[in-house]
Structure formats: structure tokens, C-alpha cells
């Protein structure tokens, strides 16, 4: 039955000859491992076609849906993360295999006559594969891909004469937008794969015309493609697949936060296989010659030599030159890539930008997974209205000139200045670190360790000027009114029996903002402030003696201009009023600038304050503390010096 059918089919189509020709290609000298690279490339390309088409069924190219659909593939769809991971890592495997295939063809001399045309076809295929990698990197429309691709299209604009037109055609307008995605997608999923298939057919056709280039025809008896070489090819493909699967499963394809045209990604880098080019145009000498020179002419020249190889080989020692050239080029590429990785790895700013993009990426995924899902404006709007994301940026922008947050600027970066000798040094803060502002620790340290708590104020210009002029400052961390009170408190609360009472006072003050607190402690704290003696029997000067607004309903702070108003202390309302006009809290001794509506609008102020008091929920890891890296103010005695009881 089967035989009859096959005979009929062969009679009508000639399929037997075709199969025979495909499978029984002669391999003089026997099958070899070194012949597998071309097959692994065909194999990886088929993986890309398969996974690419499946990803296509779920991808939506527009500025408001590209990231969102990729997020949905990655997080919500069945095995989506795996399909995307395979596609992502196979793309990278292809570039590696391309390089190996190219090197192998050159060192074996397989590019020489009569195989010149096939060599050129191969170079065209290489360009197409690289273009596929480039166009694919933009499609998720995330910060990394967006800004990496921007660099490429900017380089396009450096093309002589028609630069800007080329750039506009590529991105579908003068700016990035919907049409950048639709165009890149059409290139990535339509035009380039089509071209690749066409050139691949030619490549294989011409390859078969000349047969394999035997490395050593006498090494073994002649063999055929099936099954000997197929087995070796298959094992190689299996190896490639295993590596890709392992990477896809254990590393996974990253999805950085949605592209934000308003906020440049400072660590923008191309995919690693283009990194050498990126580093090359950064070489001072090259950079000095202009973008077109470094990014177009020189690489064009280097590629031109590659193209000319079959001709060069006709000269005496031409082949040796070619082999030396390809190894030199690979060494250069490896070296530049290594340098780029090393430099980025040791560059703090770069690492901080990466840390931020990972934090944002984790956060936006967390928000999109939440009950509100993603609004139609796109996932970027989730971050734009998120205290955890916006707060640090507003802080870095408005507050970090004086304040710090756990020692950094809110965004995980130390604030540094280059001193006279050219050395970069961490700048001394001139105001308090605010990371603990909403915590019990903050209150505790204000009460028993005031000098230290506000110690950085002594480093400010206004403080030094006031000291020189002999003026008294209310918020003088050394010898000021509250500083002296704090010293007395420290002594009182150093007594073991009073430990619980300090907790009670802290808890009472903590509860002022309406946050959840231990009721018993709050009550006891209130009693102490009301005049009850401490456990040790000592009477304590009550906070209420000066700060008479404790426990009051929040009123306009104009009533208490000399001692900071503590009604609803550290509540959203209190913080907002404080930031809008600190002089209402510190009177004419205030030194912090007022942030009116021109300085910070209501929306940003709200996001800032909500971030400061941790009014958000997240599982995302925040920036690590950099407090250890911040210099201490020299004149301020620490709690340990005074032997005070702090925790």
C-alpha cells in the first residue's frame, strides 16, 4: 500500500530523486564534526521561525500594547516565558554560530574559487541575521531595547547625504512611536526572514553545486550526508538546543520596564554581540573622527576586506593573510567586548542605572499583576503614578542636594564630587538622612541622640556662618535647646527600668500620624507626656512643654512658629505642610527652602510623601543602604561618646 503510494507520488513529482539528492550528498573523506556549523545555523533559524510565529500570535505592535503584550506572554500565557526565552537565546546562539561558521569556512579555505559566490551569499545572510537581532531587540518596547535601538537609528542618521531620511524611514517618522514598531515588526517578522529564506536557498543550492569542501579527502572513506553526517549535525543541534533551553529556563529573557521617552536610560547598551561596535566608536581617536567614520566607514572597510577575501586568496600568501585577518578581527571583537563589559561592570553609575531599571521592571510587573491590571494608556502610566517608583526620582531631583536617603540620593546612587586633586569623593550631606523619617527609630534618635541625628546640619554653610557670627540656632545640634534636652533624656533613658517608657513615648509620637501602634504603649506614652513620672521615679521635662501641639487635631502650623508643630507628626498632611513651607515650623531660623506649587506640584508632592512614609505595598527589593559610605560630620559627638542608651 505505502510502497504503491510512494511509487505513484514519485511518478508524479520525482520526489525520490529529490530526497536522494538531499540525503545522499557525497562527503569525500567522511563525515566530520567540523562540518556541523552550517546545519546548526539552519536549525537555529528554524527554531526562530517556529517560536517567532507563535510569539506573533500574541504580540501587538504599538506603543501602548507592545510591552503589555510581551508582559502578558511572559507572565500570564501558558509557557510564554519559555517560548520567549527560547527565541531570545536562540537569537544570541545564532550570532555565535555565525562567527564559528565564518571562521571555519575561512581557515578551511572553503571560501576560495569556485565557492566565492557562496561565500558572499553567506556574508549577506550574516547581515540579515544581525539585522534580525537588531530589529527584534526593539519589539518589547522596554527601556533597554528602546534606548539601545535609539543609538542605532541615530547612527543611521550619520549616513552621508541621506542620513536623516534613512533614519526617518526606519523609524516611520522623526520620532519613535507606533510606526517605529509596525515598521520594525514588518522587517523582523516579514521582510528579513523572507530575504533570509531566499538567500538561504541560494546558499544551499550553490553549496550543493560545488559539494562540501573536504578538509582532508583522504582522511577516511567517502561517506554520505545520511546518516553519518546527519547524526553529527543532529548531535550538534541537540547541544545547541540544550544550551538554549538551559538559558531559557534558568536565566530567562528579561523584560525591562516599558519604554519611557521622558526618561533616558543611562545604561543604554546594544545586545552583547554588538557591544564591540559600541565600544569601538567610543575609542577617543575614533570618536574624534566623527560618528560616520567610526560607526559606518571603518566597519564598512573591515567588512569590505572580508568580502574581498576570495580575491585576496588568489595572491601568494593571500589565504594566510585572510586567516590571520579573521583571527585578528575576532580577537579585536573579543577584546573590545571584554573591555566594554569590564568598564560597565566597574562603573558605579552604570550599575546604579541597571539596578534602577531592574527595580522598575520588577515593580511594573508587580503592579500589572495587581487587580487593576494595565490601563489603556499603557503600563508606563502604572509607574508614573506609583510612589515607590516616582518618590525616589522626585527626592533625587528636589531633596538630595542636602538630604540623603539611606546614604544615597534616593535612586541608589552616592552623591560625589571631584575634589581639587581630581579624586572623586562622597559629598558630605548638609541635612538629615530621611530614610528613617517615618520610623520609630527616627523618633527614638531625636529624643536621645539629637546631636547625632541632626549632626549633618553642622556641615552646612548657613550653620558655619551663624556660628562665626555668634548667632544662636534653635536647631543647633551642638548645644542647642533641644540638643541639651536630648542629652538629659539620654541620661534618663539609659536607666534600664526606663527602657519601656522610652518605647512608650516613641510609640505615642509614632501614633500621631494615625499609623497602627501598640495601644498600651501609646497610652503610657501619653501619660508620661502628661506629667507622670518615669519608672525610675524621675520626672521628665515633657515634650509638651515646648511642642504644645502634640495630640491636637492638625491645625494651621502658624500657631507655633518656634517649636516645630507636632500635631499629626509625620502624617501625609504634616509632611506636605512642612515641605510646602518649613518656616511655619521653624520660624525665622528655618533654612530649608519652601517648595511651593512652582517648585513641586500637588501630584509629585503626594507621590514623594507617600514614598517617604512607605504608603505602598511591594515585594520588590529596594536599593541597599549606603549609610556606611557617607562621611560623618567631624564635630559631632556620637551617642557612643556620650554613653547614651540608644538602640
Amino acid at each position: 500500500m505505502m510502497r504503491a503510494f510512494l511509487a505513484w507520488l514519485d511518478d508524479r513529482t520525482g520526489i525520490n530523486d529529490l530526497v536522494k539528492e538531499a540525503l545522499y550528498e557525497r562527503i569525500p573523506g567522511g563525515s566530520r564534526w567540523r562540518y556541523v556549523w552550517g546545519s546548526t545555523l539552519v536549525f537555529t533559524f528554524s527554531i526562530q521561525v517556529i517560536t517567532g510565529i507563535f510569539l506573533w500570535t500574541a504580540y501587538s505592535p504599538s506603543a501602548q500594547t507592545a510591552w503589555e503584550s510581551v508582559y502578558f506572554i511572559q507572565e500570564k500565557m501558558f509557557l510564554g516565558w519559555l517560548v520567549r526565552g527560547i527565541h531570545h537565546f536562540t537569537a544570541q546562539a545564532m550570532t555565535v554560530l555565525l562567527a564559528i561558521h565564518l571562521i571555519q569556512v575561512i581557515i578551511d579555505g572553503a571560501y576560495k574559487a569556485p565557492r566565492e559566490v557562496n561565500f558572499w551569499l553567506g556574508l549577506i545572510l550574516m547581515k540579515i541575521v544581525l539585522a534580525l537581532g537588531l530589529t527584534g531587540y526593539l519589539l518589547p518596547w522596554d527601556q533597554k531595547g528602546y534606548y539601545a535601538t535609539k543609538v542605532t537609528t541615530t547612527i543611521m542618521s550619520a549616513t552621508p547625504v541621506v542620513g536623516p531620511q534613512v533614519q526617518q524611514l526606519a523609524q516611520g517618522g522623526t520620532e519613535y512611536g507606533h510606526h517605529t514598531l509596525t515598521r520594525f515588526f514588518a522587517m523582523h517578522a516579514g521582510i528579513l526572514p523572507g530575504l533570509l529564506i531566499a538567500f538561504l536557498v541560494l546558499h544551499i543550492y550553490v553549496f550543493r553545486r560545488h559539494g562540501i569542501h573536504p578538509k582532508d579527502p583522504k582522511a577516511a572513506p567517502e561517506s554520505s550526508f545520511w546518516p553519518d553526517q546527519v547524526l553529527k549535525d543532529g548531535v550538534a543541534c541537540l547541544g545547541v538546543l540544550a544550551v538554549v533551553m538551559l538559558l531559557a529556563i534558568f536565566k530567562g529573557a528579561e523584560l525591562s520596564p516599558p519604554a519611557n521617552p521622558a526618561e533616558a536610560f543611562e545604561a543604554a547598551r546594544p545586545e552583547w554581540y554588538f557591544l564591540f561596535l559600541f565600544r569601538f566608536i567610543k575609542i577617543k581617536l575614533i570618536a574624534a573622527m566623527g560618528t560616520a567614520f567610526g560607526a559606518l566607514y571603518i566597519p564598512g572597510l573591515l567588512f569590505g576586506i572580508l568580502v574581498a577575501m576570495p580575491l585576496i586568496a588568489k595572491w601568494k600568501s593571500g589565504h594566510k593573510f585572510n586567516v590571520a585577518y579573521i583571527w585578528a578581527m575576532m580577537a579585536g571583537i573579543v577584546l573590545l567586548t571584554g573591555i566594554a563589559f569590564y568598564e560597565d561592570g566597574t562603573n558605579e553609575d552604570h550599575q546604579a542605572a541597571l539596578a534602577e531599571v531592574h527595580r522598575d521592571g520588577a515593580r511594573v510587573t508587580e503592579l500589572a499583576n495587581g487587580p487593576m491590571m494595565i490601563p489603556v494608556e499603557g503600563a508606563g502610566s502604572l509607574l508614573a503614578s506609583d510612589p515607590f517608583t516616582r518618590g525616589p526620582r522626585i527626592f533625587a531631583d528636589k531633596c538630595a542636594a542636602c538630604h540623603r536617603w539611606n546614604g544615597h540620593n534616593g535612586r541608589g546612587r552616592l552623591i560625589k564630587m571631584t575634589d581639587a586633586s581630581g579624586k572623586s569623593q562622597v559629598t558630605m550631606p548638609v541635612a538629615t538622612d530621611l530614610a528613617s523619617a517615618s520610623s520609630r527609630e527616627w523618633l527614638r534618635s531625636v529624643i536621645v541622640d539629637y546631636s547625632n541625628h541632626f549632626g549633618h546640619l553642622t556641615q552646612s554653610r548657613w550653620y558655619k556662618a551663624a556660628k562665626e557670627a555668634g548667632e544662636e540656632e534653635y536647631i543647633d545640634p551642638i548645644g542647642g535647646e533641644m540638643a541639651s534636652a536630648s542629652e538629659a533624656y539620654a541620661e534618663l533613658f539609659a536607666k534600664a527600668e526606663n527602657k519601656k517608657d522610652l518605647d512608650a513615648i516613641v510609640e505615642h509620637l509614632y501614633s500621631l500620624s494615625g499609623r497602627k501602634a501598640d495601644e498600651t504603649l501609646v497610652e503610657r506614652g501619653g501619660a508620661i507626656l502628661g506629667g507622670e513620672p518615669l519608672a525610675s521615679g524621675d520626672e521628665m521635662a515633657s515634650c509638651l512643654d515646648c511642642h504644645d501641639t502634640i495630640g491636637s487635631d492638625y491645625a494651621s502650623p502658624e500657631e507655633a512658629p518656634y517649636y516645630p508643630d507636632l500635631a499629626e507628626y509625620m502624617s501625609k498632611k504634616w509632611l506636605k505642610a512642612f515641605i510646602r513651607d518649613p518656616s511655619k515650623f521653624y520660624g525665622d531660623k528655618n533654612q530649608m527652602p519652601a517648595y511651593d506649587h512652582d517648585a513641586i506640584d500637588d501630584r509629585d508632592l503626594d507621590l514623594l510623601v507617600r514614598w517617604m512614609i512607605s504608603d505602598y505595598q511591594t515585594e520588590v527589593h529596594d536599593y541597599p543602604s549606603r549609610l556606611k559610605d557617607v562621611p560623618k560630620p567631624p564635630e559631632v559627638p556620637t551617642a557612643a561618646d556620650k554613653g547614651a542608651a540608644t538602640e
Partner: protein
Amino acid sequence: MSENKTPDDGTQPENEAPETAASSSETASTESGDQPRRNFMVEFFAAAIGLIVGVVPAITGGLFFLHPLFKGKHEAEASARPDAPVKDEGGRLKTTVTLESLPDDGTPLQLKMLDDIVDAWNLFPNQEIGSIWIRKVGEQVIAFNTICPHLGCAVEHRAAKGDFYCPCHLSSFDLDGGKQNEIPPRGMDALDVAVKDDGTVWVKYEKFRGAISEKVSI
């Protein structure tokens, strides 16, 4: 150096190899020449590995494509939003009417039903998802989807004739939803209604397949 393609059968141990290779490797060893066992092993492994490397990405992608079958309908998670639609555990939506407010004479009212719509990654809060006819019958409340079970037009209320009527293909129904002519395949689609203790009326909004005599929810 190579004399171009000469797929030289003479060098092959088996002349009918193309067929065996084309069908599969199982029959490959039947009449092979020199080293039947080795050749069979090589062919077997070559085919097996070829199959594995091809199947892994294809199966992964294929399963991914079947996502809609695994996940079924996208449902909005219970939301803490203050304006989120209110549903009971039976999936009934709280309507704007109460037992009190419905006309005692059984005149049907048309209500728009609002619910969150989830479309893949987007949530559209409080969207109009359809409308219903609702009427009081004694102390009971009945409700129908306004979609005609015939071909999906909107069924209207004809106050003059005291019936429901579809202007597209002239289906007509009595006020209890029963069909009055042979145009529609079934009566109007009744919906699950609950009257809570406080008199509020809750309705589970569902759509049903058209043009068939059974009532099948979609």
C-alpha cells in the same frame, strides 16, 4: 576540485535507501549491505535526534498557542476599587432596581448591565456589557437577555401589544419570554435573578448561543 553533484548510487550500500530514509529509519536495516548493525544504529540515532530537536521547539510553541483552551475566560479578580461592580458569590451583579421600584403591573423595564471587562492585559472598569428586560411578577422578579435567541438582534417591548418583539426577523415573545411564533428557535433567554432581603435585585448576566433550540451559555 569536486566534480559537481553526482549522487553516486554505486557507493551506497543500499539502492532503495531513499524510500527507507523518506519513510523512517525502522526499515533501513532490512536489506543493508556491509555493516547492517552499525548502519542501523547510526540511522536510528540520526533520526531520533533529528526528531527531538525538531519536536522540542514545536511542542513548546504549540502548547503556548493552546493557551486559550487552558485558561478559558478571563475574569477580573475581585477588586478593592471603590467603584468596582458588586457581585454576589453566584456571580450575580447588583442592579439599580429593587423589588419596590419595579412596576407592580408587570411592565418590563430595560436595564443596562455594567461590569469590568478584562481583555488580556487590560481592565476596562464598569463597561456596559449588555442589557436586560426585567419585570415583576407577583413577588417574583424575572429577567431576560435582550439579545434575540434567533439571530442576535435586540428584542424590543411592544407596550401596545403587550409582548416582546424583534424588529429584524419578526420574532415575538410573550412577557414571560415564551415564543409566540416559529421564527425564533427557543424562548427568550431567562437570566438568574435573586431578590435579597433588603429588596435589591441581583442578576447574573450571561449570553447564549443563537439560532439553536437549546440554551447554551457562552
